[in-house]
């Protein structure tokens, strides 16, 4: 019996071996390299003396990084509820499988499959004050009197990106929510109807609680996506005006590849990784606790 068990254990390891090797080669090894690099003053142009924790101390004094991190936090806090709320609302509206609703879902989902860079470029020109159709639409609807120069202040630029990203990814949350709502046992909803529960009561007391897992997943995916934001700001705002819309990842890119400071960039990446790790662990823990109660 013990022999059979140990054989079983070996078999188990054998089965997961490919995945382990994959993780070791493509995740752990580069991560180790990153940690090692973060302890040197390596430049893109070569060199790389061991400097201990000098880079980490430097992060502490780097007001640019903290500003970028704060901005990233604001972006995440604003964008995530918008994506969640809108995604859930759209899912409620399109959850039945009628042809019209299916087409609507497809249309809303379509931007998700466009590349983020392409969609950012598209919006960059849509928002242009000379030729941008978005400005023209707002003027024609008499919402604004003359075209707005969107990227002239940090606030406007921020909202411009939020609008474009909402358009781009709201369909993703919607599809997840639709699958979550559709997997709710119809008997429960039917029973609620029999008991005289109105539409909003069903949404509030049945659909929402039973979609909690999907809600957690979507929040996590969307929040981490926002924390790692780069392309949209790189293309639409270039970090401007005056460096007010640098995100954390953009700051890492800027240091590593524009200023050639690979060692420092590596240290920044490690710090960001830790921040995301703490953030997602907390989020999962909170969600798990509320799921139990």
């Amino acid at each position, binding site marked *: 019996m013990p022999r059979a068990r140990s054989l079983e254990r070996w078999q188990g390891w054998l089965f997961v071996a490919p995945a382990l090797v994959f993780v070791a080669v493509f995740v752990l090894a580069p991560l180790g390299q990153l940690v090692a690099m973060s302890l040197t003053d390596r430049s893109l*142009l070569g060199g790389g003396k061991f400097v201990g924790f000098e880079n980490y101390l430097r992060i502490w004094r780097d007001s640019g990084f903290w500003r970028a991190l704060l901005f990233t936090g604001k972006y995440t806090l604003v964008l995530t509820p918008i994506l969640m709320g809108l995604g859930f609302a759209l899912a409620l509206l399109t959850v039945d499988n009628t042809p019209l609703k299916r087409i609507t879902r497809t249309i809303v989902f379509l931007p998700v499959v466009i590349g983020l860079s392409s969609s950012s470029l598209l919006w960059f020109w849509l928002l242009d004050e000379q030729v941008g159709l978005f400005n023209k639409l707002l003027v024609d609807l008499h919402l604004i009197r003359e075209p707005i120069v*969107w990227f*002239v202040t940090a606030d406007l630029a921020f909202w411009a990106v939020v609008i474009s990203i909402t358009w781009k990814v709201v369909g993703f949350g919607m599809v997840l929510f639709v699958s979550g709502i559709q997997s709710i046992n119809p008997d429960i909803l039917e029973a609620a109807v029999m008991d005289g529960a109105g539409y909003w009561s069903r949404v509030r007391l049945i659909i929402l609680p039973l979609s909690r897992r999907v809600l957690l997943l979507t929040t996590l995916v969307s929040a981490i996506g926002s924390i790692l934001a780069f392309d949209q700001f790189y293309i639409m705002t270039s*970090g401007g005006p*005056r460096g007010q819309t*640098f995100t954390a990842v953009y700051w890492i890119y*800027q240091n590593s*590849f524009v200023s*050639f400071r690979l060692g420092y960039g590596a240290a920044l990446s490690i710090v960001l990784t830790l921040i995301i790790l703490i953030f997602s662990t907390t989020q999962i823990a909170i969600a798990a606790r509320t799921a139990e109660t």
Partner: protein
Amino acid sequence: MFKRLAFCALASALAGPVFAAPALADTMTMWVRASGANAAAHLVDLWNSTHPDKIELTTIPDNEMVTKLATGVQAGEVPDLVSFDLIYMPDFMKAGFLVDLTADLKANPNYASVAQAYKDIATYEGKLYGAGFTPDVSILVWNKDLFKKAGLDPEKPPRTISEIHEDAKKIRALGADTYGFYFSGACPGCNIFTTSPMMVAAGSKILPANGADDALTGDGVRQVLETFKEMWSEGLVPKSAQADNGANFTAMFKTGKIGIQGTGGFLLSELKHDVPDLNFGVTFLPGVQEGQVSSFVGGDVVAIPVGSKHVPLAKQFIAWELTDEAQLDGLAKNNILPSRPALADNKYFAADPRVVVTAKALGVGYVPWVYHFADMVNSDSSPWINMLQRAIFDGDVDGAIKEGREKMKAIAAE
């Protein structure tokens, strides 16, 4: 098998210069950054059609050139030739990425007449590491039709920055959507190219070469910034300029609603192609007093990365690209400037004096020899762009210069 192949390769490499047998034609690889790709292709095509050894050209996105070359050199995976933004020359030479070309270039009679700016930027500790390849240079363009409408002499461009200001006022008076002047207010690169030469013409030095060196010296910086600030606050510049990160750098002048603008030589062929009816003139970028002129010499240099597998052949190519044949039939014929300003008056440019002026601007131009150019100037959070924006849009000229000076020196000291 491998050994034999290696031996053959070695033998042919050694024998190559002796026999120069056409049967042993080689293929070299060359990287070029995207902005220089069109010009480089003309030269490479000409070389390929006249030489048994061929060059294969690969275009690298502008932003990725430094990363690719740096990682390539460290991994031993480099092309035989590389054409890149000349501004990275000091960084690359210092890092030891490039092959020393001193003996070859000094012995080359054509090299003597290459624009001084190209010689300066490719010199490190007395040695030469590259040659001018596909130049670009900044100039001032003015819209002659708008000048005429505004009652100005269309053949008399502004000769000082205050004349730019005066002319811009009159052109702005023409009406709602006609503006006197344009610059891309959120584009660091565009402004080092077109605005800094005005300061340099007025006697200022912009960037420090090291921590002990001075930055933003002289009164030219302040005078140019003051003038730009006034033009901005008087509404002579379109509002969109403040947010333009370079996307509209060339587009605005093409609309025919801009009176005067600093731009690059590349705009000429674009204007002639896209808006053939636009009646414009070209002159040097002016300074504060009449007679002061300058320009920023940009474009690409060509060099041989360490690790190149065809160094002798690559050197032959560099020698060839400096010949009259390559400069005229490869570049000038295709509306591209030769890197030898003396060739500005040639049969291809004769039809359009504006191109001749542009080609001559190379001779009066400067290029800053500094490390960390990207940090000091090109990056979106650089002290250079911060200074311009704070001075012009916030109106705090003196504070902006002071802050810019401190930050530039801190970067140069790294």
